[in-house]
């Protein structure tokens, strides 16, 4: 008996920690890591959903095809266009709102919680609302513009720029409040004496924001830049549902706003060419890594220069 309980105790001390962390690592290895690696294999094959017999090695064929595929370059162009139009205003406005929230406010909690309304709303649901808001003839967006004297209604689905703006608006609506809370959290960790020292030269609150607060929260700003790069370059739901018939997955009559994630879906599950879709995923992965790295560098440079 003594031996058994001793062994049980040894097991509890030595092995139990591994038992506790094992579920995470096992499940992640199977459903997170393995698909990413296996994706690389699929990309080298002619894997089709409708005809398993066609499965064979394609070598780098899929990647060669990618380089000369106009649809891919168009989708890449759209993805970047929407990304720039959404990320920059989003982070700027989030800083402004965090600045407003970072005061002694009545109903502080209430304001903070309300900033999360767009964040908890399913993107699917909100995009369907915006689909109607950005209608050409009776949409709210054109009505608001007409109040400001723009009487020519915009056909939001007729061209690249206007469809990008519409989609970027949806992305901004969803994420500004969330990012504002991230910035607010960081702002409140700035030691008070830094402001005490800076007040001597009589800086206004707005100047103080850009000279002291923003440089101090730079790590969180970089974090959000990376997050919105990863999310923005994989944009899927908004472009999908902005289409009056979303099942088509074409992103507009001429692919005006088709993003890469959408093209991957169309290639894999509409054209049934999984091998080629996997190659696109790998290309997108590379692009995300590069852009995230460049953005991190740029942001830290910009922030460093402002000080």
């Amino acid at each position, binding site marked *: 008996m003594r031996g058994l309980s001793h062994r049980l105790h040894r097991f*509890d001390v030595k092995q139990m*920690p591994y038992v*506790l*962390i094992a*579920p*995470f690592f096992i499940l*992640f290895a199977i*459903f*997170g890591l*393995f*698909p*990413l*690696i*296996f*994706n690389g294999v*699929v990309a080298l094959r002619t894997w089709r959903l409708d005809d398993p017999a066609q499965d064979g090695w394609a070598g780098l064929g899929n990647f060669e095809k990618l380089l000369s595929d106009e649809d891919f370059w168009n989708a890449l162009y759209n993805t970047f266009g929407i990304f720039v139009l959404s990320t920059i205003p989003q982070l700027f406005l989030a800083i402004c709102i965090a*600045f*407003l929230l970072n*005061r*002694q406010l*009545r109903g502080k*909690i209430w304001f*903070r*919680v309300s900033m*999360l*309304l*767009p964040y*908890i*709303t*399913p993107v*699917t*649901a909100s995009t369907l*609302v915006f689909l*109607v808001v950005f209608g050409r003839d*009776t949409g709210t967006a054109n*009505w608001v513009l007409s109040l400001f004297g723009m009487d020519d209604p915009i056909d939001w689905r007729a061209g690249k720029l206007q469809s990008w703006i519409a989609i970027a608006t949806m992305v901004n*609506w969803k994420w500004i*409040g969330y990012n504002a*809370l*991230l*910035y607010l*959290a*960081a*702002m409140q960790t*700035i*030691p*008070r004496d830094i402001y*005490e020292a800076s*007040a001597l030269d009589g800086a*206004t609150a707005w100047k103080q924001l850009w000279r002291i607060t923003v440089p101090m929260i730079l790590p969180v700003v970089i974090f959000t830049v990376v997050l919105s790069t990863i999310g923005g370059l994989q944009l899927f*739901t908004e472009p999908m549902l902005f289409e009056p018939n*979303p*099942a088509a997955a074409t992103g507009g009559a001429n692919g005006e706003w088709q993003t890469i994630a959408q093209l991957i879906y169309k290639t*894999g*599950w509409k054209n049934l060419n*999984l091998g080629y879709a996997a190659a696109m*995923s790998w290309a*997108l*992965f590379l692009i*995300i890594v590069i852009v995230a790295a460049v953005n991190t560098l740029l942001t830290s440079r910009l922030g460093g220069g402002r000080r």
Partner: protein
Amino acid sequence: MTTTTDTQTVRQAGARPAPPTPPKRRGGLSVVGRAPQDTPAGVWTYVLLSLTFLIAIYPIYWMFVIATSTDAALAEIPPKFLPGAEFSRNLREVFSMQDVYFAESLVNSFIVSTVVTLSVLFFCSVAGFAFAKLRFKGSNALMVMVILTLTVPNQLGVVALYILMGYMPGEGGWNGTLLAVIVPGLVSAFGVFYMRQFILGAVPDELIESGRVDGATTMRIYWSIVLPAIRPALAVLGLLTFVGTWNDFQWPLITLGGTDFPTSMVALFDLASGNYVLYRRVLAGAFVATVPLIVLLFVGGRQIVRGIMEGAVKS
């Protein structure tokens, strides 16, 4: 990671009560020697924040307006502002639409989100406990791996994940079944990371040591010492996980699209597809699929806010 302790010291400093100095100038415009968070908000702050609030809530409110109206409401200029009386009719139509399976989809979404949430809470809290309080070989290296996996964009593996699901045990694999959306979500790297950070600060080592001296096993310590201390963190992680799972769209569309067993996000997609789409119906469905989350935000808003803000400071 190394910044955690700095942040905590800073936060303690931040928790110090504000110096009771009177406002030196008009609040909001100019600050003299005071941190912004000690400066009372001016009128303009309230005006701008209220405007932000209106912009945040308008699409949700308008979704409700159209969901309660007739087709004619969509053509009104200026846009209809008050809700109509057609909500129950629109709802009935949504629930009886063929090939949409709206009622089933709501049940499915509840099942998926609940199972995923409970599983994430359990697996992430035990793993977080092990990383925070137990000594074992390779724990640092393994924790670094968890943090690295945080940055991996999982969505990029969907093609391979779909093929993998086709090889899972059972007739025809897991594609088209709820298993395909539940099982990959059972654990989360963010959850492990978040739990570890929380347990590091919330559970004193002495308490665990005294449990050991009393002869408690590791699981006993988890159950009677760690669990009671991490309830707030469980609430936060649970709410965030539930919202995220409920709203997930791309992977459920790929694996459940076209089946008679969708989640509510996929059912919304079906509702908006096809030749004859009525937006009062579509938005009635969208509103129903949004309501559970608005209720969650209403009940657990404080926790969600705190979770997001703590996550920001700790990363």
